[in-house]
């Protein structure tokens, strides 16, 4: 009984906080009005007495609410601390008026301004707690937000590919999706169709059309039905004008409903395949290239190299790693590679195919520390000295097709740390022995030499 009364007291905090704000603000305004003549000291004393008392009341109810309602310390720490400061300052100001010697010594301007500042800030932080921290900035035009350097709110839901199986399907996946795509209409303030989708209870209780989850025949659930309707159907959810669910989101919500729409079951126990979740994993923007950030290459150097006829482009528009191709430079010779050394740390993809390069390029190439893909196809390369590249820890692909490749050099590649593909198909050489390649590297070497032999049916004309 007492407990519930205490909780009730806490609930009055949002009401009571408005009193000190009003009282103290009015008091401060009166101080300003009366600053010259000092005729209304009695009124000021009255205002600040009740201001201080209401501040204390607000502080007590606030502490009760913090104690009873499960707020996180990290969320309210500043609001609470400043609330205490406000209380102290308001009493200090009152004591200042009634001529306590100690408080009389504090300059009045300092008291007034610090009280004003602390009061407004505490109120603002409190407002953030109830209305959300983007309450004031949200209605601003996007252009202004950009100018202020504010990120647009994240509308992407992501899962960690390593430990997502430990999450409950509902709490870890379904509700976050609903939060992003459904909650703007189905929340406590604006429950379209009288349906709440902010928590499990709301989902299970349904809306004005009755239950939205049908536990007997999951596929007859209204949610299941509405998200599968074609976009042009009037009943399709989310409505046409709103952000739509992605295919993967529709799939995972459907699977959850089909599996019984349980609140607490963990993904691991439900036996759902990884592919259901794979589109929620963070996108790997770098692909096969090193996940390292480096400053961009010198633009002038790049332009000069381009003028020589070398194709240079970033691996994608905003990337700093470069892709370099000499496809338009059949006359490209070993010395020209030295000019590329100027941007050696930026090149991750280097195509020297169909050029006049020789084996001496390897001593330059070993300096390209982030090189990932190297194409030397259709050249006079024999592979002598290729072992020098073994220090390139990012080198994944080497193309040596249609060269003068000496197969004796292949063992030099066995110790390369990151190789995934080595293409060594030679159109006019067919007899080589792949036995000396270690078993675990067999898949790395692509000998090619595929045949599509004629079969009798090729000759039958119907």
């Amino acid at each position, binding site marked *: 009984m007492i407990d519930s009364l205490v909780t009730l007291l806490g609930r009055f905090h949002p009401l009571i906080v408005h009193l000190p704000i009003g009282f103290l603000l009015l008091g401060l305004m009166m101080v300003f009005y009366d600053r010259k003549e000092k005729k209304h000291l009695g009124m000021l004393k009255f205002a600040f007495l009740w201001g201080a008392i209401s501040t204390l009341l607000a502080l007590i109810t606030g502490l009760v609410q913090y104690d009873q309602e499960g707020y996180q310390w990290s969320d309210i720490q500043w609001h609470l601390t400043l609330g205490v400061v406000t209380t102290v300052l308001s009493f200090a100001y009152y004591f200042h008026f009634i001529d306590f010697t100690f408080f009389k010594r504090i300059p009045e301007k300092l008291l007034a301004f610090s009280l004003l500042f602390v009061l407004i800030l505490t109120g603002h932080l409190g407002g953030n707690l109830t209305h959300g921290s983007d309450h004031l900035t949200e209605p601003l035009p996007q252009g202004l937000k950009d100018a202020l350097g504010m990120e647009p709110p994240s509308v992407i839901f992501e899962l960690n590919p390593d430990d997502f199986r430990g999450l409950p399907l509902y709490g870890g996946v379904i509700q976050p999706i609903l939060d992003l795509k459904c909650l703007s209409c189905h929340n406590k303030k604006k429950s379209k169709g009288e349906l709440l989708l902010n928590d499990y209870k709301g989902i299970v209780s349904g809306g004005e059309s009755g239950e939205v989850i049908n536990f007997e025949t999951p596929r007859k659930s209204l949610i299941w039905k509405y998200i599968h309707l074609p976009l042009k159907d009037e009943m399709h959810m989310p409505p046409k004008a709103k952000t739509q669910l992605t295919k993967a989101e529709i799939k995972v919500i459907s699977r959850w409903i089909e599996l019984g729409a349980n609140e607490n079951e963990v993904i691991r126990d439900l036996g759902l395949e990884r592919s259901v979740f794979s589109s929620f994993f963070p996108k790997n923007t770098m692909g096969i*290239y090193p996940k390292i950030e480096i400053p961009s290459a010198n633009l002038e150097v790049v332009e000069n190299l381009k003028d020589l006829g070398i194709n240079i482009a970033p691996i994608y528009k905003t990337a700093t790693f470069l892709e370099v*191709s000499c*496809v338009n430079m059949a006359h490209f010779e070993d010395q020209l590679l030295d000019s590329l050394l100027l941007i050696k740390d930026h090149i991750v993809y280097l195509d020297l195919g169909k050029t006049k390069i020789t084996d001496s390029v390897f001593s330059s190439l070993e300096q390209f520390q982030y090189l990932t893909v190297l194409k030397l196809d259709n050249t006079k390369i024999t592979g002598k000295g290729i072992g020098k590249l073994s220090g390139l820890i990012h080198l994944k692909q080497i193309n040596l097709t*249609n060269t003068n490749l000496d197969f004796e050099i292949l063992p030099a590649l066995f110790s390369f740390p990151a190789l995934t*593909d080595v293409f060594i198909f030679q159109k*006019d050489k067919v007899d080589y022995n792949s036995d000396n390649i270690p078993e675990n590297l067999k898949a790395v070497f692509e000998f090619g030499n595929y045949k*599509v032999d004629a079969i009798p049916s090729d000759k039958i004309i119907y």
Partner: protein
Amino acid sequence: MDNYKKLIQEQLLRNAQVNSRRHFLKDCTLGIGGLALGSFLQSCSPNSIPKNNYSTLERTLNPLAPLAPPFAPKVKSVIYLHMVGAPSQLEMFDYKPELQKLHNQKCPKSLLEGKKFAFIRGEPTMLGPQASFSQAGESGNWISEYLPHFKKVIDDVAFLKAVHTDQFNHGPAQLLMHTGSARFGRPSLGSWATYGLGTENQNLPGFVVLSSGGTPDAGKSVWGNGFLPSVYQGVQCRSKGDPVLYLKDPKGVSRGLKKDIVSAINSINHQEFLKYEDPEVLSRINQYEMAYRMQITVPEVMDINSEPESTKEMYGVKPGEESFANNCLLARKMIEEGVRFVQLYDWGWDTHGTNHNTSVDLGLRNKCREIDRPITALLLDLKQRGLLDETLIVWGGEFGRTPMQETREGKTNKFKGRDHHGDAFTMWMAGGGIKKGALHGATDEIGFSGVEGRVSVHDIQATILHLLGFNHEQFTYDYQGRPFRLTDVAGSVIQEILA
């Protein structure tokens, strides 16, 4: 003195006359019209054309200069194999044993209600699959006996079994498939790709079209540039005769003379540039030089005789003829040379059953034989050259075919044939970024409609652009006052077949 005053008076009067409201309304209206016209005309001047992200100075000088896409791409180039006329999925990839059981039975009316067909009228009968099927590869995907070689590469491709389109006539359906709209006027896939990415090899076109058997019903618009600059349209190369029409020097004009002509024109153009500093002039100079370079390079690349015997044997090419096999080999050569987009059209897949060649049990076998070995060879050849990982191969037609025997004008066709059908058909993709051996989508028991994993034409286009490094919703071109995209207002990337 009076006279002098009179004179002044008269001058004031004259002045006042040309300052009057009457004079303004009567005599100056044309002038106002002119003023207004001036501001209207301004919108026609080239300077007012909205600048797209892709118009940089480098681009102005060389519209095909290679560019980086906005996102990390999975592939650098695309080979699109289009079977003109719409191949029958029910004899090639979509195995429907239930349909066999219903063979020759009347088609239930419920199936026909509200549906329109290109030719079927009245009550058709069901037509069971004319091919036998088996599972192949580690993926165990089904494949018809019509494609015996293809089994070799079946684990490299990802099937889309429930593609659908809303067009059931060839022309509009082909336009939709390649330009995103069933009406004329939009740029084709290859044009979008070369517009967004340029091309690596500056001695070859960025977008090459090779056709065998005939021109698609929709005409050259399927590789047209639409509203994009015309430099991005597909260049049709022929495997028989001159590779590119009108590229050969005319009789009596030697290479040397041609070079002199080009350099003379270019030097005049260069003077023009020095005078007016219009970058368009530099662009024109570049075009002349590129055309000159192509005259040498294109015939070299188009010559399949230079390939070793083993390769020719692998594809089953017929040098000197126009064949799909030749085109497949050429496609590989183009990709190897750094061409961005190679589009192959093979004509003759419209199997209505009106004669021997268009029957699904006879003529279709011949067509399948013509593509089976070359496609298999193409995939293997790209793989052994290390190109499969950076190339996307797309195979398909403009729509599918009905599970019913075609009854043209109410009468059953003489041969076994199927009508146009857009509700469900099969396409496949292979190469970089594609999940090997994947299967997405399924049709109902008779292959009439997709029941699971239905994907639209725009979904396919969105996926192709995605693999090239574009978000199809952001890759736009301003034209007639609004941004246009390939996928119009639809399409989403088919994540299920992506690796």
